[in-house]
């Protein structure tokens, strides 16, 4: 009995320690974003300061075009979510529920693309977008991501679990294929779509290399790319960078607070990239 109590106590201590090292940096970031500039880069460094200010959040709109970054990230990630949800679901439904010639070949083709990390073909993709005049545009950012193998895979494994012959009865009722998909199948997989959407939203919101590569001007940058360019340079103002970082992580954190279950499910089904 004693050993299990010791084990309990030890594990609690360990967990509390972990909680602290997770929470502290965010707390520090939040406090720093309200500090005056000279209190952020100062020696000796301190977690708290004597005076605080909202200045950084005001300046964040002029020193860094943060609102542009935010808008771009919303349009990019949101655009990808909306388009890929539809396209992935369409394909997944067909792969899961319809027997057609070449189904296995096409599905294998899709699986193959899942194994091709973006970094491998980023250079030709960049050149392709360049030639198509799609660099530095919303279309250029969204188009390549409008379909994703992992999304198709995820949705397919869900469609497979729906009762058989669901389509048959619908066909007898006179619905055409598209109607069967939109009126019957789609509504049944709302949770799966939500899970996939949240996963897609999170992955694309966080993405750095892809938007960094495909945008040139400051006005088109996303949050990750825009903020990354502010680090390690002769930056005058750390305050706005702190405020900007808070603003960049806040939307997803808020979403997570409300929809934790879907984030968790999405993580399980995908094993996010490092």
């Amino acid at each position: 009995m004693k050993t299990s109590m010791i084990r309990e106590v030890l594990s609690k201590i360990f967990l509390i320690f972990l909680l602290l090292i997770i929470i502290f940096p965010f707390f520090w970031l939040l406090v720093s974003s309200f500090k005056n500039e000279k209190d952020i880069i100062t020696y000796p460094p301190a977690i708290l300061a004597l005076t605080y200010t909202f200045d950084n959040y005001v300046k964040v709109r002029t020193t860094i075009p943060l609102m542009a970054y935010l808008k771009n990230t919303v349009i990019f990630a949101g655009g990808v979510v909306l388009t890929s949800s539809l396209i992935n679901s369409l394909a997944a439904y067909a792969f899961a529920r319809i027997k057609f010639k070449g189904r296995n070949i096409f599905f294998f083709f899709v699986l193959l693309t899942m194994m091709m990390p973006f970094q491998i073909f980023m250079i030709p993709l960049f050149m392709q977008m360049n030639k198509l005049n799609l660099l530095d545009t919303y279309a250029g950012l969204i188009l390549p991501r409008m379909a994703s193998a992992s999304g198709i895979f995820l949705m397919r494994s869900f469609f497979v679990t729906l009762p058989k012959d669901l389509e048959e009865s619908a066909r007898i009722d006179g619905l055409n294929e598209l109607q069967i998909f939109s009126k019957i199948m789609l509504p049944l997989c709302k949770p799966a779509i939500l899970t996939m959407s949240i996963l897609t939203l999170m992955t694309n919101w966080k993405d750095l290399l892809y938007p960094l590569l495909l945008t040139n001007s400051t006005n088109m940058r996303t949050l990750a790319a825009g903020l990354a360019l502010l680090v390690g340079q002769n930056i005058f103002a750390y305050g706005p960078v702190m405020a900007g970082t808070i603003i960049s992580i806040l939307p997803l954190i808020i979403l997570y607070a409300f929809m934790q279950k879907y984030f968790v499910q999405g993580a399980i089904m995908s094993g996010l990239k490092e």
Partner: protein
Amino acid sequence: MSDKIKAIVRFWNKPQHAAYLFILPAILVLSIFTVIPLIGTFIIGFFNINIFFTNTSFAGVANFMRLIQDSRAINALGNTLYFTLLQTPVQVGVGLVVSVLISKSTIFNKFCRAVFFIPVVCSLTAIGIIWSVLLDGNIGIISYYLLRLGVQSPTFFRDPALAMPTVAVMTVWANFGVTMTILLAAIQGVSLSLYEAAEMDGASKMRQFFHITIPQIFPALGYCLLTNFIGSMQVFDQVYVTTGGGPNFKTETIVQYIYSRGFTSPFELGYASAISAVFFAIIAFLSLLLNVYMSRKEAGLS
């Protein structure tokens, strides 16, 4: 509607034909924006192209020959493997331990689960910014506290020996929530009767862990290791933000090196593509190896 149009509509309405229309958008997007560029990687590697598209010339295997002798490229491969071998086992290990500790659904544990997942939701850019300032060797708060404790503060991201481990630990901090979540789901799927039987046989908790839990969750464990491995080999974001590849190229990873060859002076897109092609081959080979190893292990356990 004329008869011809009716016939067309009827043709496409047959499920086995409609299917082609359903998969068309996805196949199109994937072909144009993934497969074609991938083929492009192999082709462009045979050319000398710069970002201005001037002086484009056929280079044959010159880029690949150059790659073999490029010590910086080999260094990048070594660094990437170093990072992966540090990060993957540690992250999966931490994820495993934590998921076991919080496997009971108490309020405290649920709170832990929620909090541990928060860094996952944040971009690695944001996390890199946070830790760059916190771990600044000169004016960062961590080094200051270490100094107060009488310890000579290491310079973390600027110390050639510590830079990569620091990036690895930071990555574990950021992402262990994912591994924890996956393994937690697997652990909760293990039937309690197995544990009860073991209890009755007098097995200690440790024995139960190693002889019941681990084998039962092995597929999930293997999945974590494999995806983590592949993901770690592609590391870029956090390195770009915290160290930029330094000091002394000690944290320069393959993707970082590819990026620097292609997108900083002198913008050698051809050479960068050659590196990408070889990199793809290496990752594919290593993942295959790992996959085979894990499957054998899994078969051996069941």
